[in-house]
């Protein structure tokens, strides 16, 4: 059990049954008044943020969160299926829960699945992933200014901007935090 005085950036607590992370925190004490703990909180299930101000002495349950390394198996009408390769247990996340990570998710990729009270709620991709280009038109001749880019479709169906020299079939290193091209992977 946490108390108001334990509140700080990064603390994970349960509010109305949902896991929240404190993303910003300010201790306030107006004039001779009571201590107030002002928080920005992010719902770890939906990603929505809210502002809340607490008085001293309020109690919070810690959000019971676990991270488990899992392998992405496949996607179907039910959602995205992952397997714990240690215990051979499978879990399914909805497209909404997977969010933008779906753009870079490839079969057999190892990801981190976040559980709240044994329910999977979110995934985290490796920072860098390698994906193959399935379609990209040749760069326009003459357009060789530094920094010039063209669209390329990845094997996940996602389209990113790449330098003009990239060809179909090549494998690219992508930064999943920004969703941007990093470099060509030599095979």
């Amino acid at each position, binding site marked *: 059990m946490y108390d108001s*005085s334990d509140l700080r950036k990064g603390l994970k607590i349960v509010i109305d049954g949902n896991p929240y992370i404190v993303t910003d925190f*300010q*201790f*306030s*004490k*107006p*004039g*001779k*008044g*009571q*201590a*107030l703990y*002002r928080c920005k909180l992010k719902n770890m299930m939906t990603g929505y943020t809210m502002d809340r*101000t607490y*008085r*001293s002495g309020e109690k919070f349950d810690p959000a019971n969160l676990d991270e488990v390394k899992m392998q992405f198996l496949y996607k179907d009408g039910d959602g995205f299926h992952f397997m714990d390769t240690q215990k051979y247990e499978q879990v399914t996340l909805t497209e909404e829960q997977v969010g933008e990570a779906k753009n870079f998710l490839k079969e057999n990729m190892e990801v981190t699945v976040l559980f709240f009270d044994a329910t999977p709620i979110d995934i985290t991709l490796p920072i860098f992933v390698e994906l193959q280009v399935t379609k990209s038109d040749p760069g326009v001749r003459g357009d060789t200014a530094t920094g010039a880019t063209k669209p390329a479709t990845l094997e996940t169906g996602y389209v990113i901007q790449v330098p003009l020299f990239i060809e179909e079939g090549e494998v690219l290193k992508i930064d999943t935090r920004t969703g941007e091209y990093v470099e060509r992977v030599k095979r």
Partner: protein
Amino acid sequence: MKRLRQRALILQAVRNFFISHDFLEVQTPVLVSTLAPEPYIEAIEVPFGNNDVRYLITSPELNLKRLVAEGLDHIFQITPAFRKNERGTKHLIEFTLLEWYSVQKDYIWLMEYCEELIRYVASVAGNWPVIQYGGIKIRLDEPFYRISIQEAFAKWAGWDPVLDYDAYRFDLDMVEQVEPNLPVDRPVFLFDYPIQCAALARRSKRDGRLAERVELYAGGLELANGYSELTDAEEQTKRFQQDFARMSKIGRRPYPWPAAFLKSIKRLLPCAGMAMGLDRLVMVLTDAMVIDDVVACPSETI
């Protein structure tokens, strides 16, 4: 390190200001046997002797008022003060307070004198006439804004705490509605507090529902708190009784009854006094967002 040099200059300038106006610098105990009861300010208790307990001052207020009652007309002190559980980016458990008192003065004078002090210190040890704090420009050479609590709450919180006081709502709206909306291009005085949050301020003669109390803000930081001091021993006794009762009610052990202080204030002349957080003044003058950056080292890091 650069900020520590600026801090030393600021402290020097503060001293020069008061000394040049014939204020006497005094030192009073940090370890005391009792304090003024404050429902929301908690003192650190220090075991003393076998069964006794003493306290680290939360402010030197009682000490200094006793000196004024004994005949020192204009005094100031720069002292460490301690408040339990108050730690954040703008709070230190151990912080530095500047407190001054002057007889035959009131809170209107405090506002003018405080302006003069800030201008002097900034011109000697800060930037003049415009300081930069967290990307905002604060003009010091124009009159500071003066906004009454009623006006501020009408404008930003939509209710009148003088007509209908509610302690929790008052604190909450102060933090969530009023403070974030205060103008930032000049320092601001908030004044004329509801009598329910008078603390040791005198009741306004103009309107009995108000207390002659003032707070100074600059760059969103609360810098100072001042009063036309309450000198009526009977009224003071009543307020202490109420505050001790409130402390017990929220489960805090009351301090010993401040009998010696109550006896001495019978001789207290009308006076005004103000307490200013010196660390925060240094923050504003050196563009520091976090209080840790303006002290040699916060106590928990030693």
